[in-house]
């Protein structure tokens, strides 16, 4: 159901102690994400955007604040519950793909189905991301774009609640990057997945339903895009 809030972040703070300095990566951020929304978190490097994504993804813990996902505040739960949370609800896509070098494309996707409760069919998903021909290639035999497609398929196959993408086009050339954006757009529109992309590339914001601008650990602005552009029209 569009409009239902599936992520609610309240007054999120994250502080790192680096030697004698305390770095405030997130200094009281609050925002929410609706179901089936395409969200772009925009900010320069060091702005704290990754920190937020990591915390929502259950990879990191905040210093204080609340993070409600699907009705549960994940801030208070144990490490074990956090693992289950990642397993059940979160699909992650990284800038550098992070595939298992020792597993083929199909195996990388199937790997996840082993720990997932209600996975989709690995082959179907891999076909959906456009890699029907390259099931049995190892990551080293794939191009960067192809590897990112495998990574997206791996994130999708567990049928996650949230697809979190950290600079998914950051390591790719313009053309390939664009095709990945198209794929993510398709995932959002056709598979009805909630997609969160964090990037420093302001051009990508044009395709978002909601753009959250972050600067120095604080939310600069949250804006709802009345008319999101399809990725084909985006230029940078």
């Amino acid at each position, binding site marked *: 159901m569009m409009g239902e809030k599936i992520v609610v972040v309240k007054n999120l703070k994250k502080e790192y102690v680096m030697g004698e300095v305390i770095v405030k990566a997130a200094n009281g951020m609050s925002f929410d994400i609706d179901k089936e929304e395409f969200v772009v978190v925009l900010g320069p490097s060091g702005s704290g955007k*990754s920190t937020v994504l*990591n915390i929502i*993804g259950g*990879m*990191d813990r905040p210093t204080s604040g609340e993070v409600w996902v699907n009705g549960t505040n994940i801030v208070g739960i144990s*490490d*074990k519950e956090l*693992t*289950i*949370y*990642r*397993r*059940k609800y*979160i699909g*992650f896509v*990284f*800038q*550098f793909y*992070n*595939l*298992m*070098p*020792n*597993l*083929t494309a199909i*195996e990388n996707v*199937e*790997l*996840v189905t*082993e*720990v*997932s409760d209600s996975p989709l069919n690995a082959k179907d998903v891999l076909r959906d991301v456009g890699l029907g021909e390259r099931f049995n290639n*190892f*990551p*080293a035999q794939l191009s960067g774009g192809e590897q990112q497609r495998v990574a997206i398929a*791996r994130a999708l196959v*567990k049928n996650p609640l949230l697809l979190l993408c*950290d600079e998914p086009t950051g390591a790719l050339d313009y053309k390939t990057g664009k095709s990945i954006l198209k794929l993510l757009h398709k995932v959002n529109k056709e598979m009805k997945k909630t997609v969160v992309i964090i990037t420093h590339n302001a051009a990508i914001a044009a395709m978002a339903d909601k753009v959250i601008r972050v600067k120095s650990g604080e939310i600069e602005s949250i804006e709802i895009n009345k008319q999101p552009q399809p990725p084909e029209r985006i230029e940078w």
Partner: protein
Amino acid sequence: MGVLNKKLVRDLWQSRGQFISVLIVVIIGVMFYSGINSAFRNLSDASEKYYREYRLGDLWASFYRAPESVEEKIKSLPFVKKATGRVVKDAKIDISEENAVVRIITLPDEKRDIVNDIMITSGRYFSVADSNQCLVEEGFFTAHNLKIGDSISPVIDGKEVKLKVVGSVRSPEYVYAIKDESELVPDNRKFGIVYVKKSFGQAVLGFSGSINNLSLLVKEGTDIDKAKDDVKKALKEFGVTEVIDRETQISCKMLSEEMEGLKATGGAFPIVFFIVAAVIIYITMGRMVENQRTQIGVLKAFGFSNLQVLLHYLSFSALIAILGSAIGSLFGMLLGKVFTDLENLYFHLPVTDMKMYPELAIPASSLTLLFCLLAGYNSCKRVFRILPSEAMRPKAPLKGKSILIEKITVLWSNLNYSWKITLRNIFRYKRRALFTSVGVIFASALTFISFGRMDSINYMIYQQYNNIQNYDIKVNFSRFLNMEELNDIRNIPHITKLEPVAELGAEISSGWKKKDMGFIALIDNPEIYKVTDRNGNPVRLPADGILIPDKLSKTLDTRPGDTVYVKLYFPGKDKKEIQVKGIIAQYIGTSVCSSIDGINDLTGEGRIANSAVIKLDSGGNEKQVIDKLKEMPAVSSIQSKSDSLNNLMKSMEPMASLTWVMIILAAVLSVAVIYNIAAINIFERQRELATLKVLGFKESEVRSLIFNENYIITLFGVLIGLPFGNWLGNLMFSVYDTETYSFVFVAETKAYFLAAILTLGFTFLANLILTKKIMSISMVEVLKSRE
């Protein structure tokens, strides 16, 4: 190089776990090298000095009886430097509720330099006063809490003779004080040496004006074998029973065999540790250079020469070698003392000035440096190939590859992904896996040998005491008895069975080869003193002809059907040709075997025996029977099997504790290797591990990726290590497999299982230590960075 050294220190700190574990392996290697070798030197220096200063004989001649003047005759032989005649006789003695045997040996009434002299450790030499003064060998003296002024009463010719103890002594002849070769370890309560004045000894032992033993020192460059023959000839008319040299004299032989064993262990054992250390260094350094290639590129780009960079990386291994040999040598000196003390529990050597041998650090550290630097150089030489421009570009991604097992679809498709990743990774880094398994192979072999060693000792004891010597009591007579005389013993209540035994010495020869050894005659179809083959099956005693032990068969190159010459050491008997009818196995002491009828053929003295073996109705009556036997004048000594077995077991205890020391060392080896190589594995695959964590794999599932790899390598190592251990065990035991004692390496099935389980346990331990390393991988940090 100042800044590079700072980098060195920081790199070291970062990989301190790995550094310390290699260091420990090196320290142990060096420690055992200098420990065992200094124990060896201590023993060898002490024995050499002892033998020289107290004039240990070169030859010993025993005979029935000869006038004292024979000493002069022997002295006139051209090769003789010094000769001392004496009377040597065993006597039984009741002392602190123990029926023991003492060897009574005469010494000159007044102290003078003799062959086989004694070293007084307390009290004094004989005085002119009382004739019945005696000196007691220190082991027996302490075992029975004797004090100067006490008296002891051995039974000589059925009469108790009271002797007054005036001192305790040591003798180079009895460093390892066992009565004869049928004993394996000394029992100071059961056997001792008592020295008496010659005049007194000759009188009470019935040797007035005569002697039965001569100790000789020969001139330098004498051909010992020829000298032995000459002495035999010269003493022929006096009934020579044996002429032996240092190679066959029991105490000398046992000590030199022990030292040989020490020397072999001191050489081989540390090498294992050096090899393992070298393997770890080779792999770790190789990975370090690989992982720091960008840094190396930068260094080179800034003008550091290849040599400077190489030396920088080599200093890791050099540091390990230097620290390892310094610390190891230090501990080694202490360990040397421990080993020497341990040896001295069995060997009574006057190690008064236990020395440290700092100079042993030189070969130890050169050896360590050699191993470490060679391994370091081989892994770091790739520094030369790194071009700065190339090194600063990102590394080509790791290549995944299909492996052979995937062809077996049934197996492969049933494996889960964690196993698929593990297997492919092992085969991707075959060399690393193989090197890791080298450590595991050594560790499992070492563990296996420690268990197998105990099994083998138990096997030997079982064979000897349950299969061969199946008696409860053995009684020795002071003269030969005929069969009728034995009936007195047979009639003692509680004796259910008695078998006569004749034990003599003999010279067995075939062609130019000859050998002195025991000759034992048994009744037909013996049940309580059996002869068996290597498989423990009984061998029938032939009506005529002899059975020879397998060792002798090899020495003389004689097989059943061949004939040999036997010369019994029995007054007035010449050598006779006799046929070999079979080969037998013996474990403790070796002797040729025949039937009692067979010995009659050789001696013509009829069916005679000088000892008997006895079986009782129940063990509880043993004391009663022994008391009865003691009253018999013909009985010279009584041996209870349970006693000797108990003593043997007790003496083996320190050996058993050594088993656990060896196992701990094996654990150190195994854990060090697995820990190190898995640490590299974890470091290099932290991306994969972090990814799995993000994907929602549980900690245990993530860990199993690394741990399963370790277990597979361990299993592979065990599979090779056990047969290797068996081979090595046989090799090690062959050092101790001598004419006297037959040590065969017999490991029970249990040893295989225990070794396998323990080796897997070592890996489990290493995995436990690694858990923290895996847990601490931060998803956030690892996954954000570029490869």
